[in-house]
Structure formats: structure tokens, C-alpha cells
């Protein structure tokens, strides 16, 4: 059984004594480029290029051989202007902070200032900053910060709507992965409403507008959704048949509770997600919707299911109310959990490889019960996670899957 066959079987509801595994199959079960560099060394695969496609999360395109070595069943395609509107059809050589050779999108030409910070420009203005000694870029400019009227919304970044050339390029990537791997193919689409708004308006302004300027926010969300639907129609009409999963992401949770109330989600966000997800389900019924949403989201999961979510990631079990057993028992029949396999925020406290394995095995037991599960760690491994821990986690998952398939557990 190939990875793709396994995943498709699971989607048809026919995979009861097994589960799928994902590492680097989408943008939230990957790892910092630094952790990846160490992993490549550890696996004796140093010759593999480190292409940093997601400059915000600073994660690499994982090589399919590395994915294979760790047991991953998924690979992903992504739009060429993935972050900061920088085209990545071409790559240029560069280095990580520690001098390790890597590749950046050719258009990524950050400016270093006297205080050691790095800046990314967009439309001639500084848009994101990485502080000296930092590992991440954060957005520092919000074009809609002062928007008051619907007509001010024209400032929404044009990158939201993809060009025909970029749509074609994305579809070709899907075709390429379909033809040249036996993995299930994921499209990193994102389709963000909340996080796009947070970037455009700034966090504080966004929340306030959501509470008191609803008309403006409805107009904004519809505008963004229309652009996303244009992109989806373009990509799927060319390569929809070759695709298994489309990845969406938006954070509705904090670690303690939801960011917004369930009624506010239903009123302000869900209608727009539903437009996108209905379009996909109605026209491409074989494609599954994967939604990435961190935090304490137990109470909003029924609404997400109703809106069309098929797979939920990252299953942040450390957040309030996200008890693995309760999650699996309550929602396991209606949704496939993708994640929850290792608590990466507390990984530093698991000091030995045996402790890491035991932690993963315990979670595997819970989440893989009755099938319907994609094993992965909770969100991307950070820069300082040693490769032996990463390998131990995925070897544990593979071992557990073999036992499950053989009827030994």
C-alpha cells in the first residue's frame, strides 16, 4: 500500500487498523530550518538543499526522501508568492545565522540595519523585521490600520489574488508531485480570514473592529473570500483531480480560551469559510479540508465541523480543555485529527529518547483508536530540538503503526 493509497483509503473510511503519518506534509508539521539542518546531518543526508520557502515560520521544503525516511505520507505544493509577496520560482544561495548553506527565494533580499536587525520590504516600505539574535520575522506594517470606510479596503494587499501565471505554476507543482511521488498531495492554500485581517489591520485594531465595526469587517471578509475563491477555482480547475487535501489555517484560540466567542465566530468568520469549503466539497468531493487552528478550541470544533472541516490540526493538547481522550471521544467520529502526537512546547522537559518515545506512544494509543488519524507532532519543531528526538518520535509512530496493522495492539 503506497502512502497515497493509505490516505485515500482512510478518507473513504476504510482504514480502521492503521493511520497516516505526516512530517513536512504541510506548513505546521515541519521544523525550523536549523533543526532541519541538524536532522540532515544526523541522517547523513547533508547534500539535500535547505530551501526556506516559508520565511515567516522559517521552515524548509522538506525533501521527499527525508519525509520518506521519517514515514511521512504527505507532500505539499504551495503558491509561488508564499510569504511577503516574494516570488520563489527562482532560488538563490544564502546562509543561516550559523553559516550553514541554504537557499532563499531569489526575491528575498533583506536589509540589515545598524542595530543588527533584518528587514523585508514590500512595495518599497519596511514590512517585517527579524531582531538581532532572533529566529523569526514579524510583521511591522499594517496597511489598513486607519481604514474606516469600505472604500479604504482597496488597500488589501493585491497578493491575496493570485495571477494566472502563479495559478498555473501552483497547478504544475501539484501535477509534478502527483506524477513523481506516491505520497498524498496537499495544497498549502491558507485561505486566512482572521490572520490576513490581523496583518492588514494590526491585532488590536482588528479585534476592536470585529466587535464594533461589523459592517466594515463583513465587507472586508467578502472581498478577501472572493479573491480566495478566484484562486481556488483557478488551481482546482487545472489540478483538482490530483489533489487529496487543501490546507487552510487561522487561529481562533489562545492557550487559555477562544480569541473570540462562538457566536462571534458564527456571525463574522464561519460564513466566509463556508463559501470556500462548500465550493471545494461540491465540486471536488474527493478533496478533504485540513484546518490548522492552535489553542483551546474545544468548544468551537462542532462549528468547524459544520462549516466543512474534515481534518483538524495541530490538536494543541497543552491548551486548556484540549484533553486528548476527551477530544477523541467527543469528535473522533466526525473529524480526523492531524497532530497531537508530541507536545513540542514541553519537549525540552523530556530529556531522554525513551521519555520522548513513551510520550508519543501514549498519544498514539489514544488518537489512533479506530483509525481516522494523521500522526504528527504539535506544530513545527523549533530550532533547538535535537534530531535524535525527532527521529525517535517518528520511528515510534512507524513501529506503532506496524503493530496496529499486525493486530498486536
Amino acid at each position, binding site marked *: 500500500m503506497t502512502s497515497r493509497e493509505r490516505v485515500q483509503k482512510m478518507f473513504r473510511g476504510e482504514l480502521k487498523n492503521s493511520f497516516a503519518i505526516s512530517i513536512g506534509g504541510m506548513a505546521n508539521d515541519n521544523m525550523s530550518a536549523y533543526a532541519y539542518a541538524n536532522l540532515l546531518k544526523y541522517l547523513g543526508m547533508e547534500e539535500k538543499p535547505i530551501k526556506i520557502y516559508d520565511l515567516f515560520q522559517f521552515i524548509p521544503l522538506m525533501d521527499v526522501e527525508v519525509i520518506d525516511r521519517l514515514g511521512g505520507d504527505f507532500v505539499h505544493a504551495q503558491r509561488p508568492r508564499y510569504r511577503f509577496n516574494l516570488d520563489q520560482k527562482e532560488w538563490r544561495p544564502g546562509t543561516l545565522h550559523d553559516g550553514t548553506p541554504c537557499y532563499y527565494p531569489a526575491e528575498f533580499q533583506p536589509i540589515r540595519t545598524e542595530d543588527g536587525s533584518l528587514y523585508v520590504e514590500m512595495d518599497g516600505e519596511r514590512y517585517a523585521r527579524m531582531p538581532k539574535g532572533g*529566529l523569526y520575522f514579524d510583521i511591522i506594517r499594517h496597511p489598513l490600520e486607519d481604514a474606516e470606510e469600505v472604500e479604504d479596503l482597496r488597500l488589501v494587499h493585491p497578493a491575496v489574488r493570485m495571477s494566472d501565471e502563479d495559478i498555473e505554476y501552483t497547478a504544475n507543482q501539484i501535477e509534478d508531485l502527483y506524477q513523481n511521488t506516491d505520497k498524498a498531495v496537499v495544497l498549502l492554500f491558507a485561505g486566512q480570514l482572521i490572520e490576513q485581517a490581523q496583518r492588514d489591520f494590526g491585532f488590536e485594531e482588528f479585534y*476592536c473592529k470585529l466587535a464594533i465595526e461589523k459592517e466594515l469587517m463583513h465587507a472586508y471578509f467578502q472581498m478577501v473570500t472572493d479573491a480566495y475563491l478566484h484562486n481556488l477555482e483557478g488551481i482546482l480547475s487545472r489540478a483538482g483531480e490530483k489533489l487529496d487535501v487543501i490546507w487552510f489555517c487561522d487561529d481562533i484560540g489562545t492557550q*487559555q480560551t477562544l480569541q473570540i466567542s462562538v457566536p462571534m465566530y458564527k456571525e463574522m468568520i464561519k460564513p466566509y469559510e463556508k463559501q470556500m469549503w462548500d465550493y471545494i466539497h461540491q465540486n471536488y468531493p474527493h478533496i478533504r479540508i485540513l484546518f490548522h487552528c492552535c489553542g483551546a478550541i474545544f468548544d468551537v470544533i462542532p462549528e468547524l465541523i459544520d462549516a466543512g472541516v474534515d481534518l483538524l490540526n495541530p490538536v494543541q493538547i497543552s491548551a486548556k480543555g484540549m484533553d486528548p481522550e476527551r477530544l477523541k471521544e467527543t469528535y473522533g467520529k466526525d473529524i480526523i485529527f492531524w497532530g497531537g502526537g508530541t507536545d513540542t512546547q514541553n519537549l525540552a522537559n523530556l530529556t531522554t529518547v525513551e521519555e520522548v518515545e513513551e510520550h508519543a506512544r501514549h498519544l498514539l494509543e489514544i488518537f489512533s483508536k479506530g483509525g481516522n488519524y494523521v500522526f504528527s507532532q504539535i506544530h513545527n519543531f523549533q530550532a533547538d530540538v535535537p534530531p535524535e528526538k525527532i527521529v525517535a518520535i517518528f520511528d515510534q509512530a512507524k513501529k506503532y503503526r506496524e503493530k496496529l496493522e499486525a493486530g498486536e495492539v
Partner: protein
Amino acid sequence: MSKIEEIFAAVSAGKKKQVPGLVQQALEEGIAPEVILNEGMIQAMNEVGERFRLEQIYVPEMLVAARAMKAGVEVLKPYLGGESSTVRGKMVMGTVAGDLHDIGKNLVILMIESAGFEVVDLGVDVPIADFVAAASAPDVDLVGLSALLTTTMPALKDSVEALNAMDCRSRFQIMVGGAPVTQAFANEIGADIYTADAASAAQAARKAVQH
């Protein structure tokens, strides 16, 4: 409904446009500025914080309430007497070096200001020396440090260590928070106070300055 009750209700509901006018009317009615501040606005924000902790309201509702209070305080400022009579305490606060995240920090600042504190925002990516310099001001009661990333937790530890080594350490308390931070980690690095959210932080700050 009394003017104070109206202010209380307008702050709670985040009516930023109404609050300044109501405060002005209250002043014209001869209500003492301290009463408007304490009974109209700070108490409203206490209740907002409580409702947030009970998950009856969420970040958007809490933010608009804090902004409404801020607009009211602007009107009140020229009428308030010497600072000591109305300011509950002083806090300096920042996100540690290497970390640019400020959503949580800004929420905490808004809520602590709403509890009647003066807060000096040191911003993000704050070098250890800046925390130390800010903490050495004689009127500082609390030093707040935030870290969002597991990879910046060491910077949090180093910053707290430097603050703990200060001669005037007994004069202020150290409060820490941020996504990966836990009570256990706060204890380990020698911080005095850990809170998990902005409303609890405001509550803890109030408690910290009760003598």
C-alpha cells in the same frame, strides 16, 4: 441611572465615543475626578476582567472596553490631582530580547493600566540592560517580562537573573508571562508572579501593591 452608572455601563460596553462626553458631564455635575476614575471606570474594568476570566467575554470585548476607558482618562487627566492620589502603582514592561511578539504584552498593559497603574512600555526585543535601567527607577513597583517563543525562554531567564542581582531588588516584584511560560518555569527562574492571561495579570498587580 446616575452619571457614574452611565460611565460604568459605557466603559463595560466599549462605547469609546460616548465615554469622554459622559466624563465631561460628570465633571460638570461636580462629581470628584477620583470618584469618576475609581467608581466609574476602574470598577467597570474590574468587572470586564472578571467576565473575561469567566469566559463570558473574549479579547475583542475586553479591548474595546479598555480603549473606551483610555478615552475617558484622557478627559479626566487635567482634573486629577497629584499622581500619588490616583495612581495605584508603577510598572515597567517589555518583551525579552530576540522576541518581537507584543499582542499578549499589550493586552496585559491595557488591563493593568485599566486597574489604575502607570505602565511604561519598553516595547519588544528589549535588551537585559534596558530592563535593569528601567527597574532602577525608585518608584517602580513591578517589572513585567513577556516571551512568546520556547527559543526566547532563555532570554527571559537571563533577564530575570539580571534583575534579581540588582541592589534594589526588594523594591519591586517581577511578573512573567507568555505562551510557553508556566508557574513552574517562573519559580525556577526566580520570578515573583506568573499569570496566564491579561485579566489575571491585572488582578495580581493589584494584589502585589497592597501593603
